[in-house]
């Protein structure tokens, strides 16, 4: 169980709805992932088209809650308006806030992000900001009223895994009361497990599942990894040591004799 802005969710795996080979595989993969919060977007409809209706009915069938995003927004104005449109369309105050600085790297514009977050929080939104691993930025987002922070592991869709482990550890340590989600850049279930082992509350991913050879099986693998990582965190990991320490008892070792 994990809480986002006071709402409880059973899964610590948040999953995206894009890039799957087919709508049927998307549904099967989301079911296999166990996720009960999925990301969606708002996009232009074509005249005469019912693409939005068709997609929305697929999501409704899954019985999951949605986290709309502001993907592709490059300014505070675009992001704020897109968030309001998403609230109108999906009837939820949740918004995964993205303000993009660079189209090639999809690096967050952290200055615009803080500004947009403040505007949206004042307007009653529950903001899930996609940000870098920078502690100063995270603190500004918390000051603006964010109770969830979503630092990247690596660039969106890169599958590199956690590239700045020390900074993510520092965020966890310094923001103990904030719900932390690693969002973007995870490629393998082991990456997700690592995030949970670090004490992150959840992970959000899309490409790693959707672009796997078998997305349904990969969704299941991520589900197990997230469970493993969380269980390990709760169990309390031992502290790494520089040198060896025998696990087998030394006392009674055959042929042992005291040095003379």
């Amino acid at each position, binding site marked *: 169980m994990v809480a986002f802005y006071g709402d409880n969710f059973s899964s610590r795996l948040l999953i995206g709805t894009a890039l799957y080979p087919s709508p049927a595989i998307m549904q099967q993969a989301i079911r296999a992932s166990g996720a009960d919060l999925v990301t969606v977007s708002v996009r232009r409809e074509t005249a*005469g088209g019912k693409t939005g209706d068709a997609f*929305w009915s697929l999501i409704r069938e899954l019985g999951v809650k949605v986290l709309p995003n502001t993907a592709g927004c490059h300014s505070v104005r675009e992001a704020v308006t897109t968030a309001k449109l998403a609230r109108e369309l999906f009837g939820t105050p949740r918004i995964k806030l993205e303000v993009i600085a660079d189209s090639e790297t999809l690096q967050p514009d952290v200055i615009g992000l803080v500004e947009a977050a403040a505007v949206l929080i004042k307007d009653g939104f529950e903001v899930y900001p996609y940000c870098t691993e920078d502690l100063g930025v995270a603190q500004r987002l918390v000051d603006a009223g964010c109770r969830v922070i979503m630092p990247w592991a690596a660039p969106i869709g890169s599958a590199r895994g956690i590239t700045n482990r020390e900074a993510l550890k520092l965020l966890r340590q310094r923001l103990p009361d904030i719900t932390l989600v690693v969002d973007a850049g995870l490629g393998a279930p082991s990456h997700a497990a690592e995030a949970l082992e670090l004490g992150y509350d959840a992970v959000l991913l899309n490409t790693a599942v959707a672009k796997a050879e078998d997305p349904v099986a990969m969704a299941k693998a991520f589900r197990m990894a997230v469970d493993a990582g969380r269980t390990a965190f709760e169990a309390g990991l031992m502290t790494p040591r520089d040198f060896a320490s025998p696990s087998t008892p030394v006392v009674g070792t055959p042929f042992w004799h005291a040095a003379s």
Partner: protein
Amino acid sequence: MRVTVNGEQKEVAATRIDALLGELEFEGTHFAIAVNYDVVPKARWAETALADGDTVEILTPRQGG
């Protein structure tokens, strides 16, 4: 009247949002609409007047990450 709908210039007869949807044959049921960056709730589509040069965004749910 000339308006921009989803980035395309259109010459339309409609003067209100609900009429614009009908005229351009938007037949779906799940839309969110912004006029000049202001969100117009569904309850106000019938009463919201369009002006020449307005920019209208007609949006629907879609896949996202």
